[in-house]
C-alpha cells in the first residue's frame, strides 16, 4: 500500500501552531532524548518526517502524538531549535480536528475568532433559556416575589428542569466525544489486522490510563509537578462532573442546609481553583518548555475551568449569605461559562485529550497484537536528502 502525498500539510500544521516543520533536519535527537520513545513507538522525529513529506494517511493513523506528555526535553536539546515538542502539541490539535466529524474542531483551531464565537453562541443560548421561557429563569422568578428576599433556587432554576438540562448537556457532550473517539478508533485501526480478542484483553489500559495518566510519570525531565497537579485537576473535575450530572438533586438543594455532597463540592472547587491558577501562572511565566507556546485553546483550558469554579463558589457564597439576586445572576454566569466549556471545548477542543490519550495507549497496545508486517516503516522516510 503506497502512501499519498498531500502538499500543503506543512502550511496547514502551521495554522495549528506547528510552524517549525521545515526547520527540522531529521537527526533523531528528539526521539533518542525522549524517555517515552521506545520499542515500536518512537517519536517525535518520525512523525515530523510524515509532516514534512505530507503523508497525511500516516499522520492520521499514528497515535504517537498522544503518547507524548510534552516534558520539553526534545525542544530543549533540538540542534535546529525546531521545537519538536510543540510540533507534537500541534499534531494533537490537528488530530483532534481530524477525528471530529462535524468539522467544528477544524474551524475552531484554525480561527480563534470562530472558537470564541462558538463559546459565546452557546453562552447566549444559556442566557436565552433563562430569559425567554415563562417556567424558567427570570420570568419564573418574577412570579415568586418572596424569592427576591430569600434565596429559593426552585423559583429560578427548578431542579427537575435543570437536571434534564444537565442530562441533555451530558448526552450531547458524550455523543460528540464518543462519536469522535469512535472515528479515531476506526481511522487508526482500519487495516491494522489486530485480532478482536486484543481489543478486549487490552481494554484495562483505557481505564488505567484514564485514571492515572501514569505514562506521564515515566518522563525523566521535571514533569512530576505537571503530572501530580494534572491528577488533582482530573479528580476535581470528575468530582464536580459527577456531582452535577448524578447528584444534582442533593448538590443543588432548594435550601442552604448542609449536605455531604457539599464536602465533595468544596474539594472539587479548591482543587480546580488552585490548579488552574497555578497553570495560568506557569503559562504566563513561560518558563517550562511546555508553556512556551500556549495557543488560545491552551489558555481556554485552565481559564474556563477557573471561571467555572470561581463563579460556582461565589454563587454558593452569595447563597449562604442570603443574597438572592446575586445568587441567581452568579448561577446564570456559572452556567454561561460551564455549558459552553462542556459542549464546545470537551468534544472539539483541547479537552478531548482526556479520552484520546488513554485510547491511544490502549490502541497502541492492541496494535502490538497485529501480525508483524515487513517493511511497515519505509526506510525512505528516514532520508531527508534523497
Amino acid at each position, binding site marked *: 500500500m503506497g502512501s499519498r502525498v498531500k502538499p500543503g500539510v506543512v502550511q496547514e500544521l502551521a495554522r495549528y501552531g506547528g510552524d517549525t516543520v521545515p526547520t527540522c533536519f531529521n*537527526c*533523531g*535527537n528528539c526521539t*533518542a*532524548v525522549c524517555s517515552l520513545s521506545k520499542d515500536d513507538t518512537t517519536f517525535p522525529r518520525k512523525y515530523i518526517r510524515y509532516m514534512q513529506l505530507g503523508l497525511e494517511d500516516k499522520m492520521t493513523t499514528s497515535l504517537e502524538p498522544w503518547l507524548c506528555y510534552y516534558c520539553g526535553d526534545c525542544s530543549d*536539546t533540538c*540542534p535546529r531549535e525546531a521545537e519538536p515538542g510543540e510540533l507534537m502539541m500541534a499534531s494533537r490539535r490537528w488530530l483532534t480536528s481530524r477525528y471530529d466529524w462535524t468539522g467544528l474542531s477544524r474551524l475552531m483551531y484554525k480561527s480563534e475568532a470562530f472558537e470564541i464565537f462558538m463559546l459565546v453562541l452557546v453562552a447566549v443560548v444559556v442566557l436565552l433559556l433563562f430569559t425567554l421561557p415563562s417556567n424558567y429563569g427570570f420570568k419564573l422568578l418574577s412570579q415568586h416575589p418572596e424569592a427576591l428576599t430569600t434565596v429559593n433556587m426552585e423559583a429560578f432554576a427548578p431542579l427537575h428542569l435543570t437536571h434534564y438540562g444537565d442530562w441533555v448537556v451530558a448526552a450531547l457532550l458524550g455523543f460528540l466525544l464518543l462519536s469522535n473517539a469512535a472515528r479515531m478508533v476506526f481511522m487508526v485501526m482500519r487495516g491494522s489486522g489486530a485480532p478482536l480478542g486484543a481489543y478486549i484483553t487490552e481494554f484495562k489500559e483505557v481505564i488505567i490510563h484514564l485514571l492515572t495518566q501514569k505514562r506521564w510519570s515515566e518522563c525523566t525531565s521535571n514533569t512530576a509537578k505537571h503530572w501530580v497537579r494534572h491528577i488533582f485537576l482530573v479528580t476535581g473535575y470528575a468530582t464536580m462532573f459527577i456531582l452535577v450530572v448524578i447528584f444534582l438533586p442533593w448538590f443543588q438543594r432548594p435550601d442552604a442546609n448542609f449536605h455531604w455532597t457539599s464536602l465533595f463540592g468544596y474539594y472539587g472547587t479548591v482543587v480546580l481553583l488552585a490548579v488552574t491558577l497555578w497553570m495560568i501562572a506557569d503559562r504566563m511565566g513561560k518558563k517550562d518548555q511546555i508553556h512556551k507556546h500556549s495557543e488560545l485553546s491552551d489558555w481556554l483550558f485552565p481559564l474556563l475551568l477557573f471561571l467555572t469554579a470561581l463563579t460556582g463558589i461565589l454563587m454558593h457564597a452569595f447563597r449562604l449569605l442570603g443574597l438572592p439576586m446575586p445568587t441567581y445572576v452568579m448561577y446564570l454566569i456559572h452556567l454561561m461559562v460551564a455549558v459552553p466549556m462542556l459542549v464546545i471545548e470537551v468534544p472539539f477542543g483541547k479537552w478531548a485529550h482526556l479520552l484520546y490519550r488513554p485510547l491511544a495507549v490502549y490502541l497502541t497496545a492492541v496494535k502490538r497484537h497485529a501480525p508483524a508486517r515487513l517493511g511497515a516503516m519505509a526506510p525512505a522516510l528516514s532520508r531527508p536528502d534523497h
Partner: protein
Amino acid sequence: MSDLNKRYDGMVIGAGIAGMQAALDLAEQGFQVLLVEKDPSIGGVMVGLNKVFPTLDCSSCICTPRMAEAAHHPNITIQTYTEVLNVDRNGPGFNVKLLKKPRYVDEDTCIGCSKCELECPVLVPHEFDYGLGSRRAVYIPHSNAIPQVATLDVEHCTFCGKCAKVCPADCFIYDQQPEEIEIEVGAVIVASGLQITPMGAKAEYNGDKLPNVVNPLGMERIQSSNGPYGTVLRPSDGKIPKKIAYVQCAGSRDKTIGVSYCSRVCCMYALKQALLTTHYIHGVEITIYHMDIRAFGKGYEQFYRRAMDEGIKIVKGKVAKIDETDNQDLIIRVEHLDEGGRVEEARYDMVVLSQGLMPAWKPGSALGIDVGEDGFFESVNPKIKPTLSTMEGVFLAGVSAGPKDIPDSIVEAGAAAMEAANYLQRTTKPKVTA
C-alpha cells in the same frame, strides 16, 4: 629581553600550520616577518595530531619540517609565548603592542636538555595532551617543540629552586617580568587558529564529567606514538577499548550550543581515527553515529568508502544522551534512522565526541576587524577575496576565518601572504629586489 627590531614588514599572528605557511611565503619574497605565537612552541594544533586524512601521513613528520623552516628562515623572527595586546592603524601600517610572557628561562642560552624538567617535583596535566598526559611545572612542551627551551609554569611552582640548581647552562632568570614590546609592522596576517567546542557544551553528553568521553584532539594524542599512554587505552582505567563510538556533530550544527555551522573536518577526522584504531587494536569495533557524512575534499569520498570497506560501522542517527555504567563503560541513546526509527541504548568502552571548530582568539577591540555571526573573522568578499579582512592591510588565513582542514588552511595562508605582499609593495618601497 626584547631583541626585536623596531619594524617588520609583516606580522603573522599565530604559528600553526597556516601562520607558518603565511610567514614562509611572505619571507620568501624578501619581506621581514615577525611570527607571534601565544604558546611556548610553534606548530599549533597540527603538530599534536597523529596522522592526517586522507593520505595518512604522520602529522608531526610533515609539520616539523615546516616549523624548522620557519625557525631557520633568515627573514623570519619567531616570538613565542607572546600575546598580541593591540594593533593600531598608523598610516598604511600598524603600531603593535605585544606582551612577552615570562618563561623564567633565557631562551638564548637554554640548550633544551630537560634536566630541569626531570628534576621538578610537580606533575601537572599537560595542555599538549589535552590533560590526558602530564608534564612538570617546568617543561619543554614536546620533543618537536621549537624553540627547544624550558618554560616555568609559575602557577604550579613550589619554588623549590631545583631547576636552576641542575641547569647546566645557568639559564634560569627567576626575576623575569612580563614585557610589553612595541613595534611597527606594514601588514598583519591573522592565523590565530582554532579551539574545539567545549566538552561540556552539550550537557546530555557529559563530556566534561565522564573520563571515557574524550575529545577528538585528545584522541589524536592517545593514538600518537609519543602520546600520553604510548598506545590506545581508555582514560578511566587503561583498558584497551574494544568498542568505540564516534558522536558526529557533537559540537557543530547545533543551535543550542551556539555553533550552528558545519565544522567541515569532523567527519573526516572521525573516519581517519576510526580506521587507524582498527590498525592499532585487533578486533576493535567502531561505530560512527552521524547525521550525514560530509566527505567533500579530494580523495575524501574514497577514504570514506575505504573506512566502510574496512569494517567501520556508519549509523545514521544523532546521539542524544551519554551516561556511564558502574564500570565506567558508556551507554549512548540513539535513534537508528535507517532501521525504522528504532531507539537503541548501546554500550561502549569509549566515546569520542566529534567536537567542532571555534575561533581560538577573540581580540575584540585589540584588533578592529569585523567578526561574523559565527565568531570567525569576516572577509570583505568571501567569494572573490577570502583572505581580506574588513581592515585594509589585515589578512586572514586558516581557521581564524572559518573552519577548514589542513590543505585548505595552507592554500589560504599562501593566498593571504600574496595579498599581504601586494599590499606591502603598494604601500611601501620594495625592500629587496634581489
